[in-house]
């Protein structure tokens, strides 16, 4: 047991080392200032996918991980959605594919976008009461071993987007000896029966792939996991809570509209708000707007009052301030 624990710690250290090395390589490699954060984000997402794969092999670690995520989100908002979530990575990769084909994306109407943002709470409530609709809970279902299929199912629905493409447990499609899966697929299998299992799975995969090809980060606009994360930001008492947030300087802003256009979630608050803290449950803190803003110091990513990243003249900094 102790040996296993040491093994896990070693593995995690290797991950951390890899991550740091990768960040360095990327920062040297990417000269283009308008893509720095995007590639950094890709890298962190990829490392997180591997980490999450290992975490799925250890349910107890997974539980701790879930706890950490939820505690973290109280102060960092939807940082998780933008930088860690594996489903987000897949959607981003589909977007990269679309870019390679030089096909344009579509924007949703703003009203629909806001409606979808509200819809996520409906989905969340639905999944929380679903097990009670399916039948009574038996005492033998309580053990942690049944974490992935038991009455904790509503919680695992929230873990849906974390599902890696290759899973360390049986239950999905077997492909050359590998268990293949896709976000939410194990949940769909759990709730469907008979022939509908595979129909539902393939319809779901087709829909998400096609929709993310057309609309940037389509799923993230109503993902229930995003709701659980964003929920704390909605209460007034928690105004202090988001330690990580975007800050805007009104006077530097020329309202050029770049922040609005580049936002993958079509958040308009960064553009519309007159300045100060930007607090919206729609923002997933990918910092694409901060990266693309061409006015120095106009947008800032702030962590606990300290600026971690700010918009700069990405055309190239001048030597003299």
């Amino acid at each position, binding site marked *: 047991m102790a040996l296993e624990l040491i093994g896990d710690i070693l593995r995690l250290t290797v991950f951390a080392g890899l991550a740091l090395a990768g960040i360095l390589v990327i920062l040297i490699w990417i000269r283009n200032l308008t893509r720095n954060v995007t590639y950094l984000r890709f890298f962190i997402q990829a490392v997180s996918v591997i980490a999450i794969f290992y975490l799925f092999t250890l349910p107890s670690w997974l539980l701790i991980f879930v706890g950490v995520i939820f505690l973290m989100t109280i102060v960092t908002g939807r940082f998780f959605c933008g930088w860690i979530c594996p489903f987000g990575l897949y959607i981003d990769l589909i977007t990269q594919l679309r870019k390679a084909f030089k096909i344009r994306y579509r924007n949703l109407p703003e009203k629909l976008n806001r409606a979808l943002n509200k819809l996520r709470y409906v989905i969340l409530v639905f999944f929380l009461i679903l097990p009670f609709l399916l039948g009574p809970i038996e005492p033998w279902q309580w053990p942690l071993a049944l974490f992935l299929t038991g009455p904790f199912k509503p919680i695992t629905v929230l873990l849906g987007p974390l599902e890696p493409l290759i899973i360390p447990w049986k239950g999905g499609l077997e492909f050359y000896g590998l268990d293949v899966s896709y976000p939410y697929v194990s949940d769909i299998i759990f709730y469907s029966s008979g022939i509908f299992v595979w129909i539902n799975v393939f319809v779901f995969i087709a829909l998400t792939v096609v929709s993310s090809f057309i609309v940037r980060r389509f799923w993230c606009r109503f993902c229930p996991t995003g709701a659980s994360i964003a929920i704390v930001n909605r209460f007034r008492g928690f105004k202090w809570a988001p330690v990580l947030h975007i800050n805007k300087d009104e*006077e530097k802003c*020329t*309202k*050029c509209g*770049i922040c609005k*256009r580049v936002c993958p979630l079509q958040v308009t608050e960064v553009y519309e708000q007159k300045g100060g803290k930007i607090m919206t449950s729609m923002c997933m803190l990918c910092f694409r707007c901060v990266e693309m803003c061409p006015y120095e110091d106009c947008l800032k990513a702030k962590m606990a009052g300290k600026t971690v990243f700010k918009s700069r003249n990405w*055309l190239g900094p001048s030597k003299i*301030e």
Partner: protein
Amino acid sequence: MKSNDERKYIPEISQKEIEELRNTIKAASIKVMTENIERMKKTSTNRPEAMQYFDEISNFFGQREKEIREAKEGGKKVIGYNCMFAPIELILAADAIPVRVGSGWYDASKLGDRIVPVEVCPIIRSTIGAKMIGLSPYLELSDAIISPLTCDGMTKLSEILADYKPIWTMCTPRVKDDPQSMIFWRKEINALKGKIEDLTGVKITGKRLRSAIELRQRATKAFRRLQDIRKGSPVIMGRDAMLVNQTSMWDDIKRWTEKTEELCDELEKRVGQKIWACPPDTPRVIVTGTPMIWPDNWKLPNLIEESNPPGILIADELCSSDRLLYDPVGVDEWIMDDMINAVAERYLMTSTCPCFTSKDGNEDRINWLVDKIKEFKIHGVIYYVVRGCILYAMEYTRIKRILDRMNVPVYYLDTEYTREDVGQMKTRVEAFLEMLQARVEI
């Protein structure tokens, strides 16, 4: 040139009269240009050597005219534009030469009086006059003119110029931040793209547009570098920097970028050696308002920097100078669609022209000014308006209120396209600068 029956505005003028007028005004203009440059050299004893190039290129009847003429003979098209709203990236992508044709000739404005009343903005009158006698080489050489319908003057100017040249009008929406405005403006940009393609016979592909955008981004980089240098103690006179900014309107943008980078290198060296263009405690002035166009309309910058006590023009909020290249086109995805969106947004949204309003009024302009005043440590603002420029004149009250709150003195200076009021203006500018000098000393 259309025949007399087809023309709507321009009266019949005998060829002889045109020749005569052109020769007199051209001779006067050359004199004014050399005189202005002489005065600039005289004020600034250690003028950067790299300014040599800009002095030469600023000559309307010199090297650049010859170059454009040769390029035109080689089959290139020249597309003129009246106003900053014309998407230059599209012109460059179609392998055409963009030149701004707005005129700053005082004498030509007298000719414009024959067609439009004197109440009209002198820039419009001067452009008409310059066209009547074929004065401006860039206006003459252009195959078509893009005319954004920003203010009332520009709207009618496009009609009058249509007597001579094909005019492509672009209707700008008056409210910037409405979603429907952007849809409309994007369509205007797309329509213009079609027109440019038809004229030049070059298809604007994604690759071409991308290289044009990147070319302009590099120019923006050099441009911003120059403005950043001006933030510190004065190492370049305001007029010199203004001339550099203005030449970008007709110069080959690639060469302009290189030369500006050279100038910046030289200036940075001077910052290191602490060689200032004028004493660092000279009152720092920002000018806002109607565009000032080389060569004739140079009287206010001349007055500010040659007056006693002297001031220095540290920055300005003019669409003929500091606003020209300040904003880059920010492209998210290098796809045709997004590139067009980015170009459209850059020209409409970043503009601080008072022809716009928005939910909060034209607040962008105030933000720009306030930011500049803080960043460039400005002591005073000169609000420059030519008679007839109603939009700028009307915004004065609002700007003054904001600046009063900030305790920054602002001076309203209205003038005309004439040399007659220089003496009177001098007294006014000197009084203002004296007051600023007193404030600086405190």
